[in-house]
């Protein structure tokens, strides 16, 4: 944690210095708050804190800090903006509830706490997200310092979770696809500085989950998982929900380079076959190449 904080701090200092040197050039653009057309390629990363209560895995709450990497492309003009973004996250959320719990069997499974690097008090998770946004400017005719955008978002999320049931290593693979109405607010302090807030929540979604397990790792090759069963279906808001709340700050370092700092709260809920809720809090820094 100390190292991550230090790196973020150094980033901020570096770009503050860089921005001062570029200030003159940018100030010239202050009268014109936003380019009429703008395309950006964004690369970023950050930290992500996940809290998950997946009753399929266990009844316990698991918490864990993870890393996040994202890449995206976006385009905007005065009337519309759209973006495609991909992000990858990895976690090992843990629960304290198993502390002190022991078991032993007649076979060679006594006091087993770990199989293939998975511990019995943790879930190894990976998340892949593909995010497509399409937004229209709502207040096109008002002054452009405060902008309201509305539109739709298509979010596809793949989640893998590895966990133990005794010495059986389980793997679930989930696919969430959801359609979200979306509202986006932007406040441009000037050409350099912009705050934005984004809120979207799913109305309809498709969810599927494969259950696989790795039987008896002591005896068999671990590379093969066996598909055991599958849940899938299309669900409305009462059964499935994905909500995303993003607060961000964008800082133009040069005319062609911007830095974004954003905090995101993402809530996932699926009620089949058993209630699963997941909250992710992400703090990311990204750099955009603007052209």
């Amino acid at each position, binding site marked *: 944690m100390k190292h991550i904080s230090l790196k973020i701090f150094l980033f901020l200092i570096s770009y503050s210095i860089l921005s001062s040197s570029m200030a003159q050039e940018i100030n010239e653009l202050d009268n014109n708050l936003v380019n009429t057309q703008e395309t950006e390629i964004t690369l970023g990363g950050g930290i992500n804190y996940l809290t998950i209560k997946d009753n399929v895995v266990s009844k316990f709450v698991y918490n864990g800090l993870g890393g996040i990497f994202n890449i995206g492309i976006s385009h905007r003009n005065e009337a519309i903006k759209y973006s495609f973004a991909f992000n990858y996250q990895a976690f090992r959320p843990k629960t304290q*509830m198993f502390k002190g719990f022991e078991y032993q069997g007649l076979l060679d499974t006594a006091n087993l706490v770990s199989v293939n690097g998975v511990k019995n008090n943790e879930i190894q998770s990976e998340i892949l997200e593909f995010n497509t946004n399409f937004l229209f400017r709502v207040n096109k005719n008002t002054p452009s310092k405060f902008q309201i955008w509305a539109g739709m978002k298509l979010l596809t999320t793949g989640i893998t979770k590895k966990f133990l049931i005794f010495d059986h290593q389980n793997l679930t693979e989930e696919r969430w696809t959801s359609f979200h109405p979306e509202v986006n607010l932007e406040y441009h302090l000037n050409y350099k500085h912009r705050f934005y807030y984004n809120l979207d929540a799913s109305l309809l979604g498709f969810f599927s989950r494969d259950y696989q397990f790795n039987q008896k790792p002591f005896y068999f090759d671990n590379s093969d998982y066996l598909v055991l069963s599958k849940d899938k279906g299309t669900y409305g808001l009462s059964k499935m929900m994905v909500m995303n709340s993003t607060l961000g700050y964008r800082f133009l370092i040069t005319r062609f380079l911007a830095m974004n700092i954003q905090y995101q709260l993402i809530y996932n809920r699926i009620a089949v076959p058993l209630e699963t809720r997941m909250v992710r809090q992400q703090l990311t820094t990204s750099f955009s190449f603007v052209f």
Partner: protein
Amino acid sequence: MKLIKYTPAILLSFLGIMACQKLFIAPDEVANQPVRNFELFWNDVDKTYPFFKEDNIDWQSYYDKYRPLVNEKTQTEALFGIFIRMMQPLMDGHRSLSYQDLAWSEPPKYSPRSKYNFDFISSEYLTSVNVTTQPDEFDPEEQDTVLITAMAKNNQFAYIGLRSYNTEIELNRSVEEFLSANSSVNNLIIDLRRNGGGFLFQMFQLMRLFARTKVPYATYVPKVGPLKNHLFPREKYEGEDFIIPSDIKVPSDGRFSNKRIVFITNRVCYSAAEHTVLVAKQLGFPVVGDSTGGALSIVMEKTLPNGINYVLVNSKTLDINGRLWERIGVPPTHYVKATQDDFKNGDPFFEKAIQLLGNN
């Protein structure tokens, strides 16, 4: 400057949002030990117990009923009592609980003397009776019988009473020595009554003496996944040797496979002893008497952080035809109808075994 002015508000908002996760997911009560122990117990049984369908039990309803009874002031002894009430309706014949001086298991339905009269057998039929004992697990002052070997007075058959597999004594070696010393005797009665089970490897080592080939005799179906139906699909694996998923096979030695053997069983015959019955039937030996006790599946022993120890199964053991005999008991090949009174001055099961050996 504006940014500096609004910084405290932004930070407060940020902290507020950070706390949001608790709105969505309430944290576990880790510090509350009775609740944590209850949660661990309930969750473990929920994820690993294989017989909810057969028991017709909605385990969630047990959570809803018993969880409100547990709070931070609940004594471990009281929690123990709650666990007893929760475990009582389960099918598993091995289930038990212990904590310090407290112990609970299903009260035996049948007396150890049920349909078994060794005094009669010994006095009427047997000679050269050799009894192997070991100190009792709970009371070392007491001696438990593990193995009885004897010859028939008329020298027509040998008798092996297998009283327990819960021993470090090498039963197969003792039986091998006994049979080698009496190699001229071709008829053998193996009496499994009063055998409460024990180590399965003892059974394998013993029964391999009588198996001509490696014999699959049962199927081990473990609970491997988190949902109720996540039992191992037996058709998807090829079994190898014995203790592995899919078919459980008894290895072969075959040194005494030419013997004519009759097995005797009754309701006081559990676990590894019931596996013996499954093997015997698969090898084509007659099994005489009554059905077994009905506790065949392989146990797991668990200890909660508060010290409560509990035993439950996490797999189903089916016979080779896919039938489940848990709680029902493995039926004999030759059922002998007899009341307890019939055993006062005789042993109809033993007499039927002699009759079958005579007819073989």
